[in-house]
């Protein structure tokens, strides 16, 4: 019986069937559902870690201890986890370790479109790339075997279209393997310089074997069609290319993409007339082919930026197949994502946006939606943690310029646990005047409401200690009088706290605490707070529109609140100067 699964579901299933025992991750699109699905298999211990570095260290430790371990993250997460990855390649991994990196060509939900295939090359670990859900399942099992056989972590590289596309999969059953024995071996696992020096040649020896093996692996295969055009490709690009060219071309389909198979590439190149390399983003395979002295067509005709699709490939390989379509003469308004109706972040951004002279350094999360009009309440967004640390930098630069511009650093609760705590210590230690706002919405909202150390629950739903953000802030040295906890649904209280923070000359922290409006147990009790507009009192001043709430509209010359969309935050009641906004239930 075949099932239709996303790539992420298939990866989870594959890990289960492979006998995986420990799985870790920090949520991040497009990788999040891997661990969410793994957590449904009770045979696997799974956890959300506070960040990707911790996740990989936990998985790496588990693997050395003898377990089959998996660690998943989005592409930028591997930047955070790079430190353990490079050294785990030296130590090796006793039980087996697969590191899933979910890249995001096209930046559907990311701050860059880095190509993590280079991490395999850089960290010297084998890399596997599936092209659909069946391969996600099969190749994960293969990855565990390869990892164990070569005593190396294996990088499993997927992309958004593989993670989130669904295709039919034949599932199998779990192979129960048991945790391998752990033997203390300091020369292998303690990477002091003297021992690490001995492990580096061991790694080089493994890579030499893998380079040969890559030519024989069934993951790297030639699919013969007509030989006028030959295409070397991997991942989703293979599916796009095959869709367009069918049997009119031959394919060297690569699944084991580090080390790349030299002999196979030479054999294929010699057998075809015109050689193309089709891959998303960077010329990773193309560069390899060229270093072999083989000429090919690649990024000279295909884009480096953005995601590939069949149409782009068609324009290059089969322009005669271009299709006609319709056009409609209508100016289409854009539809950017917005902070939801009732989002507690709005209660912070609205008063914050009034300090036009202040700089606001933002971070990764739903609150990145406060960047756009009408809130306009962010200056920078770089990476997890920079909401605080980049703010310190701004403040120090302004100090050097003899300016006293106020700097606010903004980040969410999960991001604070991820990499905000160290930044806050830096602010206190270096006597920064930064004002920090922690948007504590009691969940990891952007990726779809995952638990975090502040929610009191683990990935598997077990109750765990609630890590108190206020106590952390206090413990790192922010003075108690400079810490304020507010309810962002209370505009007066929040405005007052922002004013206090603006005037502070020491590190100041506001914790805006209010659960995400979309969490089921918070949205239900607020149903009786839904708002409506009393047209008799409304002067159409449109002040409420400045909240940027998607439930409030100016339609047919009247202000209206969409009852179905309203989540009852009552901010519009609080900003209305004529008392025209009322609660539906009084």
């Amino acid at each position, binding site marked *: 019986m075949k099932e239709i699964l996303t790539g992420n579901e298939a990866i989870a299933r594959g890990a289960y069937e492979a006998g995986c025992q420990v799985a870790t991750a920090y949520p991040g699109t497009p990788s999040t559902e891997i661990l969410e699905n793994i957590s449904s298999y009770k045979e696997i211990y799974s956890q959300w870690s506070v960040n990707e570095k911790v996740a990989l260290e936990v998985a790496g430790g588990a693997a050395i201890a003898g377990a089959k371990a998996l660690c998943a993250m989005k592409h930028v997460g591997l930047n955070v986890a790079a430190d353990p990855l490079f050294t785990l390649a030296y130590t090796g991994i006793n039980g087996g370790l697969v590191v899933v990196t979910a890249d995001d060509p096209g930046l*559907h939900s990311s701050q860059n479109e880095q190509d993590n295939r280079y991490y395999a090359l850089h960290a010297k670990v084998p890399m596997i790339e599936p092209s659909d859900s069946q391969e996600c399942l099969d190749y994960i099992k293969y990855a565990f075997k390869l990892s164990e056989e070569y005593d190396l972590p294996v990088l499993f590289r997927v992309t*958004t279209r593989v993670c989130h596309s669904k295709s039919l999969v034949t599932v199998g059953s779990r192979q129960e393997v048991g945790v391998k024995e752990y033997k203390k071996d300091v020369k292998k696992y303690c990477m002091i310089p003297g021992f690490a020096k001995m492990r580096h040649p061991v790694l080089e020896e493994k890579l030499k074997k893998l380079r040969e093996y890559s030519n024989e692996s069934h993951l790297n295969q030639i699919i013969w069609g007509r030989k006028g055009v030959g295409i070397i490709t991997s991942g989703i690009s293979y599916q796009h290319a095959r869709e367009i060219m069918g049997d009119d071309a031959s394919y060297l389909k690569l699944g084991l993409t580090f080390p790349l198979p030299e002999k196979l590439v030479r054999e294929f190149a010699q057998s075809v007339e015109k050689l193309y390399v089709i891959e998303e983003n960077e010329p990773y395979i193309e560069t390899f082919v060229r270093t072999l002295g083989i000429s090919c067509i690649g990024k000279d005709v295909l884009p480096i930026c953005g995601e590939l699709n069949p149409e782009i490939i068609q324009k290059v390989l089969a322009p005669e197949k271009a299709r006609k379509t319709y056009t409609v003469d209508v100016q289409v308004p854009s539809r*950017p994502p917005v902070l939801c109706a009732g989002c507690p972040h709005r209660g912070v951004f609205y008063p914050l946006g009034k300090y036009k002279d202040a700089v606001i350094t933002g971070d990764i999360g739903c609150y990145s939606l406060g960047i756009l009009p009408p809130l306009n309440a962010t200056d920078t967004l770089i990476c997890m943690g920079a909401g605080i640390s980049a703010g310190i930098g701004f403040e120090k630069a302004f100090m050097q310029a003899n300016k006293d511009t106020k700097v606010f650093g903004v980040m969410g609760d999960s991001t604070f646990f991820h990499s905000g705590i160290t930044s806050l210590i830096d602010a206190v230690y270096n006597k920064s005047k930064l004002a920090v706002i922690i948007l504590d919405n009691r969940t990891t909202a952007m990726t779809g409401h995952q638990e975090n150390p502040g929610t009191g629950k683990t990935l598997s739903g077990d109750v765990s200690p609630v890590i108190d953000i206020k106590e952390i802030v206090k413990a790192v040295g922010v003075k108690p009088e400079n810490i304020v906890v507010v309810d962002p649904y209370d505009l007066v209280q929040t405005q007052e706290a922002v004013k206090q923070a603006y005037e502070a000359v020491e590190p100041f922290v506001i914790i805006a605490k209010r659960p995400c409006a979309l969490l089921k147990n918070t949205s239900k009790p607020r149903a009786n707070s839904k708002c409506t507009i009393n047209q008799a009192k409304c002067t159409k001043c449109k002040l409420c529109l400045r909240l940027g709430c998607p439930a409030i509209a100016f339609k047919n010359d009247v202000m209206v609140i969409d009852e179905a969309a309203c989540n009852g935050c009552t901010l519009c009641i609080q900003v209305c100067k004529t008392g025209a906004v009322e609660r539906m239930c009084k």
Partner: protein
Amino acid sequence: MTKSLLLAGVGGQGTILASKILAEGLIRLGYDVKMSEIHGMAQRGGSVNTQLRFGKKVYSPMIGSGEADLLLAFEKIEAVRYINYLRPGGILIVNDYEIYSTTVLTGQEKYPDDVLDKLKHSVENTIVINAAQIAGNLGNIRAHNMVLLGAAVKQLGIMNVNWQDIIKAYLPEKFHEVNLKAFEEGTKQPKL
């Protein structure tokens, strides 16, 4: 011959659920099915689309311009946004429903007022359904995705599946009745 369907709407309208049910039905008919959707930022009231392809053997999950046999638009402006995906002679089913984006709400952009006329003028096979009103009359406006699903199933000529069975499997029991009725209303649209 691979067929391509594009479902377009606004985050929260239930496009993904409709496409899941559609995919399940197509699998029951014995097709190879691939489906592609984008999660993440798109959920926050942004424009969302699901691409669904089926046939004997499907390779790419993505649809190119001029390739969709059917465009199922859950909102008027989303029909226009994705119209270039429709192949000549393809069918457009559009919900007579408006959702203002923030750029329109805040007056930065205007919501055009003659969208349906222009769509009908350009696309010969256009079906307009007031799915929101139909679902609203049945007692739950949220079921408008099932009205649209019903209409799509009818136009695709794939009524020979136990859709009721699949809809029930994907929804909690208390919503069965209204959604099944909504689906049935959708299938009452005459086939082009």
